[in-house]
């Protein structure tokens, strides 16, 4: 199925956060280059949601296919956060697994995963959880074969639960301010441990603890983007060229990096304490910084850039 970029999609002005999964794919990739696998016309829907009297989507909330990025062949997957919170169900997960397995044969320049997910779809929890494990194995196989797997995170559902673990398995991550990366979501922590542990209604706390700026400053992500499609395209192009190998050396470096992080910041209560210890002059100003000012702050953070992922 040919995907021609609609005239209304301008990558410079379209918000990543507001865009649909399809808009992101079409505006991110070279015009006219996207071909979808198992497109909605094939109606491969969830076999399980009717049991819960829930509506289904013809694509089960994920778009996968091939495209070109600056002329180079890539495989691409994009989760639709508006459908079931972008969560992993059986079909949704299997589409991503199939795409990553195909990468081993096709040897694309990169695989891009546009995360927008709350994690496992509870109505299909066992299938979703297993698919996440399969996805992580398939990413490792692709990386070990020399294929960079790049995650882009800036959607309204964030990147939570098993999605956060998959993100941590990727070669590189680009994130915008709105992109949150975490395992337990704010509501999950509050429900299980109380509002004293995490007040999920405190949005500023959510952004500080899980948001793109904190992840970028501490090396949890490798690029920080303004909330436009063109910013994510530029970041993806840059990251493809500097993906770390998947080997013992990389993982030993990651082990050292994460141990050092816990040694250095393990007693911090708040992200602002972490930023202060990183040498940020005015940590309270970080949430309000524009992209330019934030980039300058990142450049001074000793934790931000590394090959240990």
């Amino acid at each position, binding site marked *: 199925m040919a995907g021609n970029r609609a005239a209304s999609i301008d990558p410079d002005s379209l918000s990543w956060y507001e865009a649909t999964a399809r808009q992101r794919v079409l505006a991110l990739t070279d015009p006219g280059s996207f071909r979808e696998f198992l497109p909605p016309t094939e109606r491969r829907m969830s076999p399980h949601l009717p049991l819960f009297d829930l509506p289904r989507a013809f694509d089960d909330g994920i778009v996968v296919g091939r495209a070109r990025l600056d002329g180079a062949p890539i495989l691409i997957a994009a989760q639709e956060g508006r459908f079931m919170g972008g969560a992993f169900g059986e079909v949704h*997960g299997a589409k991503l697994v199939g795409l990553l397995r195909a990468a081993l044969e096709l040897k694309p320049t990169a695989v891009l995963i546009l995360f927008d997910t709350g994690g*496992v779809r*509870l109505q299909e*929890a066992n299938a*979703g959880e297993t698919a996440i494990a*399969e996805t992580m194995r398939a990413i490792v196989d692709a990386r070990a074969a020399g294929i960079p797997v790049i995650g882009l995170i800036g959607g309204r559902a964030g990147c939570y639960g098993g999605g956060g*673990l998959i993100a941590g398995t990727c070669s590189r991550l680009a994130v915008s301010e709105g992109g949150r990366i975490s395992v*337990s979501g704010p509501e999950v922590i509050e429900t299980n441990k109380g509002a004293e542990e995490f007040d999920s209604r405190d949005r500023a706390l959510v952004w500080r603890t899980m948001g793109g700026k904190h992840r970028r400053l501490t090396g949890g992500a490798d690029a920080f983007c303004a909330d436009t499609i063109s910013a994510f395209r530029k970041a993806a192009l840059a990251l493809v060229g500097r993906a770390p190998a998947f080997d013992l050396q990389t*993982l030993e470096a990651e082990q050292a990096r994460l141990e050092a992080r816990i040694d250095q910041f*393990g007693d911090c209560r708040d992200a602002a304490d972490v930023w202060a210890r990183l040498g940020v002059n005015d940590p309270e100003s970080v949430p309000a910084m524009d992209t330019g000012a934030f980039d300058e702050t990142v450049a001074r953070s000793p934790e931000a850039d590394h090959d240990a992922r």
Partner: protein
Amino acid sequence: MTLAEILASLFPQGHAVAVRDGLVTGTGPFAGGQMHVVGVDGDTPLGVDGALVLSRVVLDAVRAGDRAPILVAVDSDSQRMSRRDELLGLNECLAHLAKAILLADRSGHPTIGLIYGHSAAGAFIATALATRVLAALPGANPSVMDLPSVARVTKLPLDKLKDMAKSTPVFAPGLDNMVATGAVHVVLEPNLSLEGQIRALIDGMRAGDVRDRLGEERGGRPVARAIAAAIADQARLG
């Protein structure tokens, strides 16, 4: 079976496996060489600190290059749910542990998961689900989320969910359902030697990820294998 009983059956000549703060590490003599053991015991939640303890042991084994089997034994809670863990990048630490286990597998260490109690969510994905073959003992209770929590999120009455759980393995907690989806390859026989059963599992290991095929055969994940295969087919067509 308790962890002590498991280790006694697996290593009849004795072992050097210890539990500290709910984290299991050590080695035992196995098949003329040794076996590494890592894991989580006592329904302990897995946070950033514990994940890095376990990943270090796994990476040390890979660096040693002995290609010895690595057993990942699990009776855990879910991931540790806290502000501190998320602030420190729990997703990176859990993914790092899973990557270490996957690297070990690629580096010639047979990796075997053994779930003998509870496990859930991120802790399960980072440990037992990252192994090549996942075995269980009767009484194990893997889950993604318990039914009362599912009821809260899905806004369905608990009684209705309990009824649905009887006929639909795809969402309900429990070992039988995780076997049906293919995540758990086999349930071991506790009255027979675990040493022999684990040896047989290692000898029978196959390349590739067979979990979606198992899920199709067992009916717990009816379409995943076909969907993944169809994607790969369409990708090949160009």
